[in-house]
């Protein structure tokens, strides 16, 4: 039932006579048709609605490329404490030293753990980080008069935001194929590089769950051609504290703080796509950042970043997310960071090993996994007519959120499985057991799997109908109907 269906008119009242200083023509004639319910009705409705979600707090959620790890509750209570939640973005620096010191230290810690020379916390998600990064690359080339560089190279395993971002920055995109072992096809890359190359966007470890072994060579090739190297940090969890993008030769990177640094995904956001740069890109950094001067903190201005690409948001990105990430980083500390990559990698490799033993086919069977790995169900799809999607749906019945399905696009019938370091062996084993059970069902009673889920609030939904007969909002007409 929609909240609107609990609604009744004339529950609440307003006195609008006090608006007489506003010309009538500018005023609203009829109140918005928002739900009119009591506080209890609203509380009950949304409390009940919440229980129709899977979440980390309720389920193992091994969603590849998404790093669904535990989100410490203390980060939430600190971010929502009145001192932080109540601070106005334009509060004078005098009233902001406590907040700014956190942001400054966050910048510094991110530099240290990634090996970059400057960090901006402004981007509001990974994709905006990518935008800022590619915009800096463009600004850099433009500043050098290198206007012919109109192309960005992107491996075919890349996330869709990479090519979309390049387009947004006015670049054309050239896809680079990936080899069967998960590494970039160097020959193809070689052939693609030229004077038109502005840069390459790379995720390492890639979305195939393996480390790009030729990264140093790739960096050299791109740099030799005058291009810059962009690091999509969505998978930073896999190497945190052990390997640094800056050391690999990347010129600009983003880090999804909502992944690696445990800020909650919130059913779709908010995130933070903080970006780090090498020394030569510092002048191009976006507004705003925190600068330390004489033991106090001030906001960066145009003289700090003379060739700044400009402002990305109305204020300073998503500080509520940044505070959470800061808390998490300080809780982990130096040792804790390295443990993140070690144990997320241990978990992924353990699961891959056990699943291979159980008869599942790994997409890249002969290499170590990073913090995630891919199972391909193409045999099941062909022989049993049970697809990756069917496995995914049936997993829900068994109390596990499905892994990422059908991404990366180049592996057929794939499940991209990322357990993260905060899950216990007990839960990994439970998931594997569930997969084995489904395999058994697929072989013996495939209908059970292909018609799953059976225990969710709804069965499979008609997506075609959704897109064809668009029903995107409850309307007053419908209220009349009720």
């Amino acid at each position, binding site marked *: 039932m929609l909240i609107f269906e609990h609604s009744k008119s004339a529950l609440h009242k307003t006195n609008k006579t006090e608006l007489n200083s506003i010309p009538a023509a500018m005023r609203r004639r009829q109140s918005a048709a928002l*739900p009119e319910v009591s506080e209890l009705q609203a509380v009950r409705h949304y409390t009940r609605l919440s229980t129709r979600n899977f979440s980390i707090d309720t389920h193992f959620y091994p969603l590849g490329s998404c790093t669904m790890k535990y989100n410490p509750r203390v980060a939430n209570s600190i971010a929502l404490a009145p001192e932080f939640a109540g601070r106005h973005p334009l509060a004078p620096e005098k009233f902001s030293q406590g907040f700014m010191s956190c942001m400054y230290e966050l910048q510094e810690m991110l530099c240290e753990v990634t090996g970059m020379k400057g960090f901006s916390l402004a981007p509001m998600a990974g994709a905006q980080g990518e935008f800022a990064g590619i915009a800096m690359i463009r600004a850099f080339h433009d500043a050098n008069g290198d206007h012919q560089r109109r192309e960005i190279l992107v491996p075919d395993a890349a996330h869709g935001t990479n090519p979309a971002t390049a387009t947004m920055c006015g670049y054309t995109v050239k896809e680079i194929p990936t080899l069967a072992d998960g590494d970039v096809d160097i020959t193809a890359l070689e052939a693609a590089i030229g004077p038109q190359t502005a840069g390459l966007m790379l995720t390492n470890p890639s979305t195939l769950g393996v480390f790009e072994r030729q990264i140093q060579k790739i960096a050299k090739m791109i740099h030799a051609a005058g291009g810059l190297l962009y690091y999509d940090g969505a998978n930073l969890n896999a190497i945190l504290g052990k390997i640094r993008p800056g050391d690999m030769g990347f010129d600009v990177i983003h880090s999804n703080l909502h992944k690696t640094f445990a800020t909650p995904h919130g059913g779709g956001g908010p995130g933070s796509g903080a970006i780090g740069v090498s020394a030569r890109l510092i002048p191009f950094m976006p507004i705003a950042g925190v600068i330390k001067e004489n033991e106090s903190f001030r906001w960066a201005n145009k003289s700090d970043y003379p060739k700044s690409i400009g402002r990305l948001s109305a204020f300073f990105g998503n500080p509520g997310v940044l505070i959470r990430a800061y808390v998490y980083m300080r809780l982990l500390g130096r040792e804790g960071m390295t443990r993140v990559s070690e144990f997320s990698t241990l978990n992924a490799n353990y699961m891959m090993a056990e699943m291979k033993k159980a008869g599942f086919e790994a997409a890249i069977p002969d290499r170590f996994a990073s913090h995630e790995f891919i199972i391909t169900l193409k045999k099941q799809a062909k022989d049993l007519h049970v697809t990756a999607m069917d496995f995914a749906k049936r997993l829900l019945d068994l109390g596990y959120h499905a892994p990422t399905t059908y991404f990366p696009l180049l592996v057929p019938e794939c499940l991209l499985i990322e357990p993260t370091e905060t899950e216990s062996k007990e839960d990994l084993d439970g998931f594997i057991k569930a997969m084995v059970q489904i395999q058994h069902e697929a072989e013996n009673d495939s209908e059970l799997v292909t018609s799953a889920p059976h225990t969710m609030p709804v069965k499979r939904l008609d997506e075609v109908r959704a897109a064809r007969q668009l029903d995107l909002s409850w309307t007053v007409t419908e209220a009349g109907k009720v």
Partner: protein
Amino acid sequence: MTPLSSVALLFKVSDDMPFIPHTENEISSMLESIGVKQIDDLFSEVPAELRAAELLKIPTGLSEMQMTQLMTERGAQDGRPLCFIGAGAYDHYVPAAVWQITTRGEFYTAYTPYQAEASQGTLQLIYEFQSMMTTLTAMDVSNASVYDGASSVAEAVLMAVRANRKSKSKRILVPRNINPSYAAATHTLVNGQNIELVDIDYDKDSGCINLDALKAFEGEDFAAVVIQQPNFFGSLEDVDAITDWAHANNALLIAVVNPLAMSILKPAGEWGEAGADIACGDGQPLGAPLSSGGPYYGIMCCKKALVRQMPGRIVGRTLDEDGKEGFVLTLQAREQHIRRSKATSNICTNQGLVVTASTIHMSILGAAGLENAAIQSHLNTRSLVEKICALDGAERMFDSASFHETVIKLNKPARAVLDAMTESNIIAGFDLAEDYPELGNAILVCATEQRTEKEIDLYVSALAQALSEV
């Protein structure tokens, strides 16, 4: 009793491996299953010279208790100044229920609702959110949010360029009195696609855009006209006339609105003869704490005909295999994970949790609650402004009607006056000098419904003193 060596022992809430649940035994058995000796072996494919050294600049870990102590100190350092500033972020009251429910684990720690059957909570909530935004703005459809007000303007501009069938222009008319940060960010974000933002100046008396200013552009080709209601000065624009002018000139009309103001002002969908084509703005006034500038969310609504050009996620209602109603992400073919370099936008992660809060906020307040907050903010600001203007040396800059912000002209240096007022623990207004040097000593003030009469009086006496002493 033995002497006490030190108090050095750290109280750890959990243990030496916070957030990692592995015992020594488990680690061994997992390594054995993989067939390696130690965890480090799993990184053997990485060239040795790439292995990071110790992260010396990162301090060692703190216990949760220590972290809480540290942040309590940091928070206390910033005090809790009295806030009389808006300029795009407004100190409205948010009922306690809103964030208590929003931060339930099921909302707080879920991912984007790609697995629809396991995400009906979030999906239905977004559908309800879309419904609330459309009724508030009187537009046909809404998406599930973009990043913030600034990004919503940029996305609206990109969308208008794609969507305008009558014009192939990449030029957009943008008033100088829209939030200057929105204008700046829009410039950054659309710049790469060779879109040109053309300034419209505001009228010096009213602070508003008048038709004369627009007439200068007649005959030129523009993809869209942007207009902000209320504008950055807090003043109310003649939206009907401007909308009609835009349409008459084959431009789309992009309405940048304060959604709380929409509860009492003519909604964007009803502007002029045909209504705005795209409505955007910042959702912050609907339940998001100030939080140093974010997370807020960007509103994005449009006419039905434009829906396939809309960026961002959209939830649709549909049926399941049993014919039962349910909700899914729809029109995903517009998005980057499908459409890649041809997507309507690169935005993927949006501001879901704030949308969740906002939806609950609007449900609890209802239309009347929003109206009351809007009206009381309007009245408080009027009261503040009247009292300010009764002082020597301060007066209203513009003669137009306003919602809950007003520009005050001072006869003393604005910066110095604002600084002086921080001594009374007051954030007294936004200094317009940098963005609008032509206004002289001008500050933008705001008193939301949370400011009490006592606080307003405190402001006025502090200002009186500052004006006399600076």
